[in-house]
């Protein structure tokens, strides 16, 4: 018998005698479950990532359009308020307030409101230093009067906005 033939024969016989231990099935099955669970766990993650990407895709263009902030009309830009101790959040808050006003007041009222509040803010900025501390003594007599005038003129508008906001 040739060595090749003998090799085939012997390997076949030996292989037949080698039985995969039955307990190995449990182990492979466990690994398989782990794999299947990982896979299931990963898919919502993928969804979340996709949702995140979609959100960013929506946010970027809206951020570009949102540069027409109402608050920008008053301050020029966010850096103005930052120079007076304000933060980005303060700016957003003011913007929110203005948006609320725009929604609650009619067109003429809003225009008037915008003019008044702009003047008020100019004065407020003047008395506020870079740390956000107010120095009312900085105002002249005339300016102080103007400040009170503006406040009283704006009062009905504020009332109207707040009343509608919390009926």
């Amino acid at each position, binding site marked *: *018998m*040739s*060595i*090749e033939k*003998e*090799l*085939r024969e*012997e*390997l*076949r*016989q*030996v*292989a037949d*005698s*080698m*039985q*995969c*231990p039955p307990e*190995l*099935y449990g*182990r*492979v*099955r466990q*690994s*398989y479950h782990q*794999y*299947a669970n990982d*896979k*299931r766990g990963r898919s919502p993650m993928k969804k979340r990532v996709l949702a995140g990407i979609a959100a960013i895709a929506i946010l970027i263009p809206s951020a570009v359009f949102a540069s027409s902030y109402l608050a920008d009309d008053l301050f020029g830009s966010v850096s103005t308020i930052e120079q007076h101790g304000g933060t980005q959040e303060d700016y957003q808050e003011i913007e929110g307030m203005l948006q609320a006003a725009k929604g609650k007041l009619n067109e003429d009222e809003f225009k008037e409101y915008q003019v008044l509040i702009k003047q008020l803010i100019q004065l407020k900025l003047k008395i506020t230093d870079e740390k956000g501390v107010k120095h009312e003594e900085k105002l002249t007599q005339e300016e102080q009067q103007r400040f009170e005038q503006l406040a009283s003129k704006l009062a009905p508008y504020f009332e109207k906005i707040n009343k509608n906001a919390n009926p």
Partner: protein
Amino acid sequence: MNDNELLSWLEKAKLGDESAFQLVYQATHQDVYRTVAFLVYNKQDIEDIVNEVYMSMWRTFHTYDPNRPFRFWLHGITVRLVQDWKRKTWRRIRLFERNRRMTCEHFDWTDKAVQQFEMQHELFSLVRQLLYKLRVVVILRYFHDYALEEIADILQIPVGTVKSRHHLAMKELRKRIEMTGGDAYVH
């Protein structure tokens, strides 16, 4: 085993179908186990590698080339993992410890059935003593009946290298047979 059937089970198993996983395991586990056991002798290591082969099956299913037989792909994975395992043990410098174990408790860890066969089957015991590089060629050639070109593909080495390893292995086997006094295989 029917390749098409197996592939559809494998695909389902990959998606988490447990009964499909069972079918795949039933159809392949003996073959995987035997292939690994011919190449690696430590019982614990054999089981680790078999487990890895199944993990790898789900993970690398996308690399399967449908133009080739399923078992070719399976043996490719199996041999690759055996080789990875050998590299890893080398890296962990377990070699020293292994050598010590091999000399101290020679063959203690082998399958009882295999030991018995070693006594009865002289040629097989000689195959077990071959260097891994030569042994893997012998196993793929004479146990799985692959052509030398296919073996080159599985091992990812040139055909020339496979040929020379095959030649060396056979030469070694003949030499050892002569040394042990057998004269049945002269050519």
